[in-house]
């Protein structure tokens, strides 16, 4: 039951990403190309998602806890460090090169297009390399 509900929530996300145009790298890259073939659609995606989540979270956080889990698991790290800023900058560069972000690419896998499979495989390689280097770090300091 819990996993089926979770599946349906993923489906709502996937349908939203599909309708919004975030599955389409041509559209995403055009949003970032103000000097060229600019397509401002993504402002509406971001705006719609942000306002809805902002209101939704206000309502949800008014409860003592979630419906199907013991407590809300929100990130507690508050550090504005180089790992956060450097990581975000690197992500921006990758997004600008490929045109896909993870939130757009995962639902796009459902279209069966091989380009999406290649991109997601490359992202997985990147994640594993990063996890490996992050995992090795504490050992280096010993």
């Amino acid at each position, binding site marked *: 039951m819990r996993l089926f509900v979770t599946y349906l929530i993923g489906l709502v996300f996937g349908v939203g990403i599909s309708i919004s145009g975030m599955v389409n790298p041509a559209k995403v*890259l055009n949003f*970032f190309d103000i000097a060229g073939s600019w397509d401002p659609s993504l402002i509406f995606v971001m705006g719609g998602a942000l306002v809805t989540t902002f209101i939704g979270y206000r309502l949800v956080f008014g409860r003592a806890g979630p419906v199907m889990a013991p407590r809300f698991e929100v*990130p507690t790290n508050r550090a504005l460090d180089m790992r956060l800023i450097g990581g975000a900058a690197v992500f921006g560069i990758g997004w600008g090169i490929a045109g896909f972000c993870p939130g757009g690419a995962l639902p796009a896998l459902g279209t069966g297009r091989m380009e999406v499979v290649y991109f997601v495989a*490359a992202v997985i390689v990147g994640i594993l390399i990063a996890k490996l280097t992050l995992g090795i770090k504490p050992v280096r300091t010993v």
Partner: protein
Amino acid sequence: METVFTPWASLGGGILIGLAATLLMLTLGRVMGATGVLSGVIAPTSRQDFAWRAAVLAGMVSGPLAIFAVSGAMPTVDVPVSLPMLLIGGVVVGLGVTYGSGCTSGHGVCGMARLSLRSVVATVTFMIFTFATVYVVRHVLGM
């Protein structure tokens, strides 16, 4: 490659994304971040952790299929970049989202909606770098 401006479809899709983020917090008390979902499926920390993320991922992938079932057409996916750029960009994205602890959905939507300063800083940073990268790729390198 020109694309059609779609304010209403994009707004509607955005609202659904926000609805999904809200529902995941309401039911499981979790942040709807694509990076966390993918990361938790390929390198799970526990069995339970894997299960809910795999369920979200399966739902996400079903999104375009649901669109196809209703409209008879898959959502448009036009890839205007070469395969090497797709692969290099993918590895770079994977590195960045892991070090930066999130992407457009986790930081840009969920974190910003919680007014998390980390997420605001991350979102502003990656947006600036994406704008700059697209400018360099298209107008300086002419690719």
